[in-house]
């Protein structure tokens, strides 16, 4: 019964989305206030019924109702309750339902906070969210119903959740990522509403910016958690593999990063309007493209869901409708935008454009690298693979100019900047970066790697010039600490964002060049020494989990005879899915990870043990967290808390 209720709610949510897509926009066209103000209640309706549907599916998992096909395929009676909740999004149908819940959630949040926007504009924005909803709900109802029953042959037990996903990282990774992906639909809706209304201006940019920042924060955190999860769960110690699905999440992130910068210019200077709109459209388009790539089976990937041509066809059609119509609207409206703001070649505007240029180039590299194999094969040119060696080398070249610009940008004034005034701060920053970057590798390691020095140089350049920028801000103030505080959250958000990027670069540069990976043959009692650490394999035990049996190897790690920690590394066998998983042992401090993964048991009873020492690897994710915190600070800046009055004044323009 509950499952049918869920299915029915989904259909009702679809009806709401359909009305939401039509009525308010018609009202906005006709200037009919009543129809426009229906946008909010319709949005709430769409959200509430999606939520009911989602709860119904979760209920099916909790009570282990194996008459529901989706539950039977992705759960079992041995699965602990917390994984039953997360098993909802462990496969295609349920994860899409989560996706739609998030989409409806964003729309509902927009409805709540848009009361201060001009009615016409709010109506258009919500209607666009409704239009996106129509496509998603239809897709779900027609091709991916998670409530299908297995009647009359109800299985006795389910086939269990994919063991790879039975992990705390997986509890938060997909929701975070979806919040980010779908959050870009808000920026998209703002852009489309602005194009429809023919009003692209600073006010639009200001309204859209905190939402875009919020989506960007989620995307940043989602990607970071995903990378962290892959690092400890897959057992090979990598934190990024340039897999097509990883790329699919990275592209919207790159564009969203460009977008938050470009929105800043549009907001403060009223320029680059059509470029900003194009970025907003591209960001969401890329997240739709990612959905298509993951769910259609056109690419080979670790993370891809099972392929189904009908689904692929539907998603591609939806993708085409959304992207083509918005790009057409863009061409018609944005080509008429005239920009009057003046700036010179050496100005913050130009540097931010430069930043955008490199981010867009990076996006293009990822897009080409992801899709060229598909195109290459279709043109009959044979199969090629584009992976880590290619992306790593190209990204080094893109990061260099990007980081240089990033260091200079904040020091430069809007409109025009004399170069002479900047010589001192820039030279100071460069000097300190060069000195530190050449000293540091000697302190942390015996060898000096050119690439590590380069990475440190870029990161320290960013840090040093950020410090210079802060000094410049308070140079003329009496009370410097107070002046620093008064800079405003948005400014500190930028500072943190940039520092986080520098931290991540340090992590990447050091772990890529100084990591040690050894595979050794060990039996209980054996000791292996590497880089000053001693790893003693003390014992091998067995453990019975809820739906797996595992062999647990215990290691004592000592340094200079002093015990640092005792850690367990597991090899699990999930009995229902018949899969072996490694559970890595990690000993962590801020400057290095010790990583022990069990390989296979060898014929003489010893084990192949993979031991990694990964200096500064944590800095990569720490950098991500700092960037996200920066985003949070920016988004909470007081100028985004709209005052009723000021918006009322600009509302007249909106109905133009």
């Amino acid at each position: 019964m509950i499952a049918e209720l869920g299915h029915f709610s989904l259909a009702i949510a679809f009806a709401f989305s359909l009305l939401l897509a039509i009525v308010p926009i018609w009202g906005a066209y006709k200037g009919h206030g009543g129809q426009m103000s229906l946008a909010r209640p319709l949005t709430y309706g769409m959200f509430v019924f999606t939520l009911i549907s989602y709860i119904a599916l979760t209920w099916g998992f909790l009570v282990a109702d194996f008459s529901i096909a989706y539950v039977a395929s992705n759960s079992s009676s041995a699965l602990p309750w917390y994984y039953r909740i997360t098993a909802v999004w462990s496969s295609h149908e349920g994860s899409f339902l989560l996706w739609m819940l998030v989409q409806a959630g964003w729309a509902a949040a927009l409805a709540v906070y848009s009361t201060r926007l001009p009615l016409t504009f709010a109506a258009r924005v919500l209607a666009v969210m409704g239009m996106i909803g129509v496509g998603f709900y239809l897709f779900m109802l027609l091709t991916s119903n998670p409530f299908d029953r297995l009647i009359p042959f109800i299985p006795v037990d389910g086939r269990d959740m994919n063991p790879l996903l039975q992990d705390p990282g997986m509890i938060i990774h997909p929701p975070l990522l979806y919040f980010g992906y779908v959050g870009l639909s808000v920026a998209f809706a703002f852009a489309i509403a602005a194009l429809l209304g023919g009003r692209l201006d600073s006010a639009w940019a200001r309204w859209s910016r905190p939402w875009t920042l919020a989506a960007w924060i989620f995307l940043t955190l989602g990607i970071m958690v995903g990378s962290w999860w892959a690092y400890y769960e897959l057992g090979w110690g990598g934190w990024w593999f340039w897999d097509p699905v990883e790329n699919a999440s990275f592209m919207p992130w790159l564009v969203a990063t460009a977008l938050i910068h470009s929105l800043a210019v549009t907001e403060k200077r009223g320029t680059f309007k059509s470029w900003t709109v194009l970025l907003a459209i591209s960001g969401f388009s890329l997240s739709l493209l990612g959905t298509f790539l993951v769910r259609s089976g056109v690419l080979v990937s670790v993370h891809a869901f099972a392929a189904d041509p009908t689904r692929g066809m539907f998603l591609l059609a939806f993708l085409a409708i959304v992207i083509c119509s918005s790009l057409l609207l863009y061409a018609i409206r944005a080509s008429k935008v005239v920009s009057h703001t003046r700036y010179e070649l050496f100005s913050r505007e130009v540097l931010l454009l430069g930043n955008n240029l490199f981010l867009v180039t990076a996006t293009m590299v990822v897009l080409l690298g992801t899709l060229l194999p598909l195109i290459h094969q279709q043109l009959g040119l044979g199969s090629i693979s584009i992976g880590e060696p290619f992306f790593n080398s190209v990204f080094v070249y893109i990061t260099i100019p990007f980081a240089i610009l990033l260091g200079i940008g904040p020091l430069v004034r809007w409109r025009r900047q004399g170069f002479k005034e900047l010589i001192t701060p820039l030279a100071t920053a460069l000097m300190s970066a060069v000195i530190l970057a050449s000293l540091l590798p000697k302190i942390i390691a015996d060898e000096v790697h050119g690439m590590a020095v380069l990475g440190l140089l870029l990161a320290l350049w960013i840090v040093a010039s950020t410090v210079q920028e802060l000094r410049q801000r308070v140079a003329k103030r009496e009370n410097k600490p107070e002046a620093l505080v008064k800079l405003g959250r948005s400014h500190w958000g930028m500072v943190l964002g940039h520092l986080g990027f520098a931290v991540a670069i340090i992590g990447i540069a050091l772990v890529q060049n100084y990591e040690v990976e050894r595979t050794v043959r060990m039996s209980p009692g054996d000791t292996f020494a590497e880089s000053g650490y001693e790893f003693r394999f003390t014992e091998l035990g067995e453990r019975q989990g809820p739906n797996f049996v595992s062999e647990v190897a215990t290691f004592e790690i000592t340094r200079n005879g002093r015990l640092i920690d005792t850690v367990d590394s597991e090899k699990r066998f999930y009995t229902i899915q018949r899969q072996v998983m490694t559970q890595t042992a990690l000993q962590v401090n801020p400057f290095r990870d010790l990583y022990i993964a069990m390989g296979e048991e060898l014929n003489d009873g010893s084990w192949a043990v993979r031991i990694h020492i990964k200096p500064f690897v944590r800095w990569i994710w720490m950098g991500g967290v700092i960037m996200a915190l920066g985003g949070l600070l920016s988004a909470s800046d007081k100028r985004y808390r709209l005052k009723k009055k000021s918006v009322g004044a600009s509302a007249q323009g909106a109905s133009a």
Partner: protein
Amino acid sequence: MSSKLKFWIYLSPLFAFILLGVFLFGGLFSDPTKLDSALVGKPVPEFELPDLYAPDRSHNESIIGGRVVLLNVWATWCPTCYAEHTFLNELQSEQNVYIIGLNYKDYSRADAVQWLQELGDPYQISLFDQSGLLALDLGVYGAPETFVIDAEGIIRYRHVGDLNPRVWREEVGPVYYSLLDGQE
């Protein structure tokens, strides 16, 4: 800049997407996991492998050449091989196709022999490649795979997956018969 030109410039992202969309659409109908053989147009690599039935008899690359042959890679652990086996028997008995079998990384010689005894043996010569090294030299990445090799010992075509009447009629058969015609 004229407004018309500007419009077309602003329309260019749309064209870029449409172009991309064509390939995405095509992608729906092709299997990304199917690989083209790197050995088409090249001679069969050298090898030295024991006969499946007689461990002390060995074969080398000289058994290839002089006639058009199919080289079929199979194993008893492979369910698709089971599915195509009847058709291989038909090819051999009804169309007189010369097929060399390459038993690939099987559990044991006995298993393979038992399989052929029970299901029929379509192979003129059966090679036993337990280490999988010839298969690796041939770029085999799964079973079953079938190579069409011409009279000069050059690989002309590779089919991945099972041979069945449709695949034979549409893909592999035409290559085989055109080589046979060329030979005469």
